[in-house]
């Protein structure tokens, strides 16, 4: 059950829905397909002790990277921080926790949370350091590792268009984790390029049905 969709300014959306210690999922992959304006507002808010659940953490001082530079992070759940070496430094110094998962396990874990699957088995990582302390199990001929669903308090997603109800469609490889995260969090703020009238999106092509979305914010959608 969600309230009627709200269209808010970024600052307002962030302040209403995120608090210190929130677990925040953020869509995107390598500085593309992430909600830039929402991330900027999160940085500006100064809200701290956040756990950020995302593919990567942008670059040093860019995008989600600013949250680290700005000391707003308690922990990370994700898979690829090679684009932002500050993550390794902060982790090695014990400043933040990092829960590193294979990218497919990360994606599936988020999907699982949205789809009511608490745990699943996967081949990825069996026998490696990333499976240390995790249960493994032989199913058929091979060994698999048990992985758990990954949920969050708030998802910040980037979509291409929303209709007035809140249905979302995405843009090319800017889709990435966004639709999965929209299902895995209690609250969802979607930054969109454009809001179109209800009925203007093809019902066959809607990727995220509106019932997952709480708040829309509109950006210019310009390339930077």
């Amino acid at each position, binding site marked *: *059950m*969600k*309230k*009627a*969709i709200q269209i808010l300014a970024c600052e307002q959306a962030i302040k209403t829905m995120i608090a210190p210690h929130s677990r925040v999922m953020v869509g995107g992959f390598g500085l593309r397909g992430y909600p830039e304006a929402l991330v900027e507002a999160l940085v500006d808010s100064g809200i701290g002790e956040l756990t950020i659940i995302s593919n990567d953490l942008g670059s040093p001082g860019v995008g989600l990277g600013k949250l680290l530079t700005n000391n707003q992070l308690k922990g990370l759940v994700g898979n690829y921080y090679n684009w932002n070496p500050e993550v390794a430094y902060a982790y090695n110094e014990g400043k933040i926790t990092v829960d590193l998962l294979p990218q497919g396990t990360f994606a599936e874990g988020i*999907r699982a*949370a*949205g*789809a*009511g*699957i608490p745990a699943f088995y996967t081949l990825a990582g069996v026998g490696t350091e990333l499976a240390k302390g995790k249960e493994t199990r032989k199913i058929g001929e091979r060994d698999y590792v048990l992985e758990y669903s990954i949920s969050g308090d708030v998802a910040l997603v980037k979509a291409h268009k929303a*209709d*007035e*109800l809140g*249905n979302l469609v995405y843009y090319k490889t800017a889709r990435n984790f966004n639709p999965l995260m929209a*299902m895995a969090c209690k609250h969802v703020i979607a930054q969109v390029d454009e809001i179109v009238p*209800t*009925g203007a*999106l093809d*019902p*066959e092509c*809607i990727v995220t*049905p*509106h*019932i*997952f979305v709480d708040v829309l914010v509109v950006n210019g959608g310009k390339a930077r």
Partner: protein
Amino acid sequence: MIQINEETAKERIARRIAAEFDSSENRFVLNLGVGIPTMVADYVKNPNVYIQAENGMLGVGPLAAEGQGDWQLINAGRQIVTQTQGCSFFDSSMSFGMIRGGHVDATVLGAFEVDEQANIANWIIPNGKQLGVGGAMDLVSGANRVIVAIQHQDRKGVSKIKHTCSLPITGFHEADMIVTEYAVFCYENEQLVLKEYAPEVSLDDVRSMTEANFVVSPLVKVMEVSV
């Protein structure tokens, strides 16, 4: 005590359940099972209620007019339905992802039996002529609220609201509300509580037609009925 005929009973149950959602100012996702539950759609007037069909649709509209409609657009009861503005289509894993993931606010389903422990038996009569479970087990465990829509007694006058279900269970401790043509019950603090009863019957009538023990709500009232 007046006997309510089957058609009236079904309509009354469907209308009473629909009324549950009248006041929702929030977007409310509703899944309807086969039978009486499907009829609920006809009486839901609140535009904030979005009907989900587990065969892959959110935003189910009214049944298509007889002989009209799109033959491939059906609800889970195989009825040809219409679509609403802003509806969406998806595959069955997405559909049950919604259901299991807690994104469906209420499901309304029929049952053979329901009992004091909020157990529901609605999927099979062993060695019978039907073999099927459908989405019932996913729905009772996944939906946030489970409303059982049943006639109070079977055709032999035997209560469907039992001390303990005798048929195989669909879901344990999952029922939140029972609506019959004679009464409305909720489960509160692990007790079955009578909240409303029909104008045609007395409290004693309800007691005599109900096998299950129940307590009477201090706020018990007469069911509002239009049929």
